[in-house]
């Protein structure tokens, strides 16, 4: 029975890879790189016209709008026109990602770009990478591993995102803070950073109280049920601190059904993260109060780091991207256009 399962899984996996557009590109690049070197090419192709081989391990682009924007940004940057031979692989599971990393190392990529699903468990595979001469660049998410194992990490400082949001909330000077805290997938860097800041504040202040702290695993429906359960219980609350936009949306759906007003100057303060375009539009309509940015546009940072390394320079170990927090009272249409994902 196990063999049958394995066989099916393998064939499905192979099928999905075959269907992947990028592997087609890979075949094409070999054929086209010759012709391209003859004609004018805008890419600065290093090593005498050879493409830089990168293996990119990302989370599933369907996970959220953030990830979709992140993946689209990477796909746009790592093309043969820009001098890269890129392979993409996606998983939300750490073990699968580690398997992909091993495959990429075997395929002798020059760079391994990694957005880890989980912070733990990466030491041994990164040591393998180092031994094989594969340079590792972390993007979007940090991992618990020795910094010597990777060249650089381009990250959002999730702690800072959380702090920015909590400071904004503190600045609202509410008489008391009864918070429904809807968490992301437990253990992810985004959850830890965004929860950490709030937990610290609640522990420090007397008039801050957590009414409910639950993980909705980035899932709008679960968030809706969690908020509904608080409404049913009749407990008082005046802040919804959701760790991403989807969950904030689910929470707001529950508020709407219960006839509880929310937004600027209303009963409940709604906070979200990630700056989806539709979420910022909610801010513009003053239905929500705050949205914290989590910058998904890392490709240009990665590109410049790779160029630095190729030129023999040593990049900075940790590069923290600039990130904003938007307030419904001050947000403008151009913010939605510029920062919405």
């Amino acid at each position, binding site marked *: 029975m196990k063999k049958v399962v394995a066989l*099916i899984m393998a064939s499905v996996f192979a099928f999905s890879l075959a269907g992947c557009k990028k592997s087609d590109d890979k075949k094409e690049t070999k054929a086209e790189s010759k012709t391209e070197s003859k004609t004018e090419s805008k890419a600065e192709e290093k090593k005498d016209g050879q493409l830089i081989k990168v293996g990119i391990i990302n989370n599933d682009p*369907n996970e959220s709008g953030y990830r979709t924007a992140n993946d689209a940004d990477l796909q746009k940057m790592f093309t043969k026109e820009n001098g890269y031979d890129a392979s993409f692989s996606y998983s939300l599971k750490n073990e699968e990602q580690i398997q992909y990393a091993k495959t990429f190392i075997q395929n002798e990529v020059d760079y391994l770009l990694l957005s880890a699903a989980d912070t733990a468990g990466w030491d041994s595979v990164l040591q393998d990478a180092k031994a094989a001469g594969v340079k590792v660049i972390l993007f979007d998410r940090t991992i618990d591993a020795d910094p010597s194992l990777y060249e650089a990490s381009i990250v959002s400082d999730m702690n800072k995102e959380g702090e920015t949001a909590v400071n904004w909330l503190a600045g609202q000077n509410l008489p008391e803070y009864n918070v429904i805290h809807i968490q992301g997938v437990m253990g992810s860097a985004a959850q830890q950073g965004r929860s950490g800041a709030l937990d610290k504040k609640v522990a420090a202040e007397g008039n801050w109280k957590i009414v409910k702290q639950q993980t909705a695993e980035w*899932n709008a*429906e679960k968030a809706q*049920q*969690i908020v509904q359960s608080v409404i*049913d219980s009749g407990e008082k609350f005046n802040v919804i601190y959701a760790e991403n936009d989807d969950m904030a949306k689910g929470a707001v759906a529950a508020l709407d059904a219960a*006839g509880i007003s929310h937004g600027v100057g209303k009963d409940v303060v709604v906070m979200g993260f990630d700056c989806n375009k539709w979420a910022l539009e909610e801010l513009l309509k003053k239905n929500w109060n705050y949205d914290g940015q989590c910058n998904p546009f890392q490709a240009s940072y990665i590109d410049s780091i790779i160029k630095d390394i190729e030129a023999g320079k040593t990049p900075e170990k940790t590069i923290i991207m600039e990130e904003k927090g938007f307030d419904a009272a001050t947000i403008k249409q151009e913010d939605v256009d510029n920062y919405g994902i």
Partner: protein
Amino acid sequence: MDKKKIEANKKGSGNAASLIKRITGNQLFIPIMAIVLLALINLIAGPSFFRVKLINNNDGNPQFSGSLITILDYGSELAILAIGMTLVTAASGGQDISVGATIAIAGSAMLRILCGSNQHPETLKAPIIVAFLVACLVGMLCGAFNGALVAIFKIQPMIATLIMFTAGRSIAAWINSNRLPIVPGKEFKYFGGVIPGIPIPTTVFIVIICIIAIALALKFTNLGLYTQAVGINEKSARLNGINPILIKFLAFVILGLCVAVAALIKVSRISSINYNVIAKDIEMDAILAVALGGNALSGGKFNMWASILGAYVIQFLTTTLYRFHIQSDALAAYKAVVVILLVLFSAPKVREVISGLIKKIFSGSKGNNGKKTLTALAAAGAAEGAGTDAFDEVSVSEDAVSTSEEESDSKKEEAVQ
């Protein structure tokens, strides 16, 4: 020999015991008991659980609000899926583990029709009914795919549906080329919310329509009979002129239709979709609902109403656990406990002990007959595990009687008949 003993037993222990046995033997007993138990727990923790208020929602429409309404509302998808899952289980003796993924596919197809290629359209691109019909078609196609693998190619249902389970969410994302569209307007929200002027959640009406539809189908067609016949013994069903391939295929297609209806509710709740997390793990809940209804997961006889009740038991449990501030990532563990209890409860060994206990109680209360006293002693001996050799022998035969009585409606006996 057994039959004589049954008769003797019936005469001996009187009507009360047989009544109790009839009640506990009924498939609806376990889910109803579970609901009563959960209601009691909530009552003890505070009667506010049962309060239902009429409020105005933010669109200005009246709406009932309260935990009981929440259970009815959020249990809807599961109840609808339980209908299809029961048929699939009964016909094929296996389960469809791809319903969550196919909800993503059907929901994605619906949004593709409603929003066109635009991520945030200003108005609906097509009437909702068209989008829903397309979703039904897509759901039934997915069901047909699974059904064909199971019925024609004779692949184990769980293995066959593993394909859709693995690939489904990627297909869903592909349908909308990875975009996450948002449906404009208030009309689409009615299906997962309330229709203006009607304070009861629309989902309740959708479930009622589904229940009426399946009730009519079971009453006026041979669907139920044929499904059970195929599940009990495929060969003899074929010899009796039933086409097992068609019946199994049909079960999966009906489940596909249920999936499309569930997808409508799910997508309507938030007017959007997230391919990766929509209806996550709902397949396990749907299977659990069938099991909670006391239906054999190996196929054969089934009780549709018990499955539907089972679905609401699960939602009741979820709502209760949320009320007690239990971490939502621990919900699965609590459901696992329920499964373990169910399995234990249906195990022959445990049933022996329980039926022994029941007998002890009833024989004890009306012990005015010599023969009965012996039975009582034997039963007591069996329950306490401290009988003498002679009593043990009696108790063994007693147990044999009770087991055969309880299994009189089991599929093995039917197959023999």
